[in-house]
Structure formats: C-alpha cells, structure tokens
C-alpha cells in the first residue's frame, strides 16, 4: 500500500483518520511503538545507523522524556527489543532495511505520511 503524501495532518495537528486509513495496518502497528518512532526520527536525519547507536538514542530519548537517567542495563534491554522486534517490524513494512547479522540499518525510506505522523505523535 502506498501512503498518501497529501493532507497528512490537519492545521490543529491531529492525524486525520483518512491518513491513518491510508497507512497500511502493518505500518500503523509498527509506528504504535514509541521506540520505533524515536528510531525513525533519528533515521530521517541519517538513513543508516548501527543498532548500538539506535539503542543509545532510544535510551537518551526515554531519559529526556521521563526526567530520569537511563543506565546500561536498561539501554541493553532496549537494544535487544530493537534487534528482535522493532527493527524487524519496521523492515517488514518497508520503512528500513535491517541487516540482523551486522546489526545495522542499511537504508531508510520514510514517506511524507509517515513523516507527518512522526511529527505529530509523541
């Protein structure tokens, strides 16, 4: 399914139901995970990244959002979730190319509708 690049969000910033309708169910499910959104926001700046960096970014983003300090074990458990669940899901719906052997995202494709959703959802 191709995302509709037009009218992804209203001027009040709410996601239009139609936009969600035009995102595939797989993408909506993948993007429901806050870790996935942090990862994609990072990959929108730089389309390739090693898993370790993405785990750092998720840890930092969580720390900033919750006002806490995220330590190595929490960061490592995030890394495991990214590797086994989040990145395979994003890869399955065509948003990233993930090489699980090298633990590296080798490419990222973010459509305007996905991009708009990332901008509007925390």
């Amino acid at each position, binding site marked *: 399914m191709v995302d509709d690049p037009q009218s992804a969000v209203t001027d009040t910033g709410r996601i239009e139901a139609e936009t969600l309708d035009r995102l595939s169910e797989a993408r909506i499910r993948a993007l429901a995970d806050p870790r996935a959104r*942090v990862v994609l*926001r*990072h990959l929108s*700046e*730089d389309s390739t990244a090693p898993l*370790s960096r993405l785990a*750092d*970014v998720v*840890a*930092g*983003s*969580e*720390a*900033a*959002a919750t*006002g*806490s*300090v*995220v*330590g*190595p*074990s*929490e*960061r490592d458990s995030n890394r495991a979730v990214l590797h086994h669940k989040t990145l395979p899901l994003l890869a399955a719906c065509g948003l990233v190319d993930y090489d699980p052997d090298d633990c590296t995202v080798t490419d990222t494709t973010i459509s305007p509708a996905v991009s708009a959703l990332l901008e509007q959802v*925390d």
Partner: protein
Amino acid sequence: METLSDFVDSVEARRKTLEVHTDDAAVATALESQFSTRNVDVTRRQFSDREGDDFVVVRDAEGTFLGALGTDQLEQILSPETHPPQVLADSEVDLGEILDVLDRTVFTSFERRQLVAIVREFEERAWRVGTGTVYVGFQRAEALAAQTPLYNRLARETDLSITVFLDDAADPDRDTADLDLDDSIGVVSPESAEIGQYWFFVFDGGADGELYKCALLAAERTPGSYHGFWTDGPGLVDDLYTYLRTRYVA
C-alpha cells in the same frame, strides 16, 4: 596506586565523553564551555526528536555507554542546589561513574606558565586556610631555591605543615641545610626516580577539609611543556596525599 605515573594513568583512563544529541548547536556549545575545565570531551550529534528532548550520552574512555540523561536533567545535576539525589535516586546507574563527569579534575598538557599559575592559586589557598599539610615536589634544586622565600613565609606565618620533596639523585652531596629552608619545613629526598620526574603540589585542605583540598601532578615531557592533571576532587587529593605520606614521609 604504586607509582605517581599510576595516578596520571588512572586519571587519563577516567576521561569521559559527553555525547550531546541535539539539533541546537548552542546547547552543545554551552556544554562544551561548561566542561572545558573538566576531564571530559564534549561531542555533538545531530538529533531532532521532540522539542526539549535533547539528551546526552556519557561514555567511558573506551566508548562504553555509562548512562543517558536529558540535557534538562544534566543542568539540574550541575546545579549545586539540586545535585544530585532527586535526579538519580531511583536510577540503576552507577552514580559514581556519572558524577565522575562532573568532578573537577583537569587532565591536560600545560605550558610552564600555566602550571605556575595553578600552583600559585593552590599556595594561596593553603595560605588562606592556614592549617593542614602541604607536600610540594620540585624537579630541580634550582626550582626549589626560587620558591624558598615563599615557602619560608608560608611556614613562619601560618600553621601549615610543609614537606618539600626533592630528587636525591639531582645532587647526592647536598646538605639540606644548604637549602636555606625554615627549620619547620620537612625535606624528603628519596632515592626514587619518580620524585625527580614530577612537579607536584598537594594540600590536604587543613581544618576546613573538603572545600580546600587540591593537588597538581605533572611530568615534564619536553622542556617547558608538561603533562598531567590538577584537581579539587577530595578523593583524588586524599589518594595522592596518602600515597606520598606512606611511601616517603611516614
């Protein structure tokens, strides 16, 4: 620690990296400036998540992840009023490791004039406190001779206990009486190569303790150019003081 060079190595090994993830260059620049006198490298990575969600990743000298926190939280920790229990109380993070970033140890290369300026500051600090112990090591007898009037005044006009360290090998026939030092100043002149290799100053803080502890340890790499550290960190000052006392004084 078994040698003075172990202290230099351990401080160097404790150097941290603060990786600032932000799309606002000013945030990184401010942190760079804030940490410029600490044992920390500050780097910036472009990151645009939600507004106000800038964060830092703290890494050890090998690049291993030690912890991540929002720049807002870092500011809170840096603020002496809130530092640090509220922010870190519930964290599984190794508090010591993170706070290492905040300690006031500077590891660097010095020009001679910079080293002199730091030692002058430390000498003045000891003078103001007026009690406690000062260990000062000179690489050469001429360097001590230049400072003898100052240390004699320190010894006579304060209650400081001063011990001077001088490399014995530099002048094996020297009589300590030739040094013109006040009688109350102890002289340690061991047959130990390391004493001649380092310029150091250690003040244990005296009666006011923690607030005034300070130490400097530097080796001359090339003429006039030194490598080492200075610190206000009480733990490191105590370690250096204890090392010198047990090895050479006690």
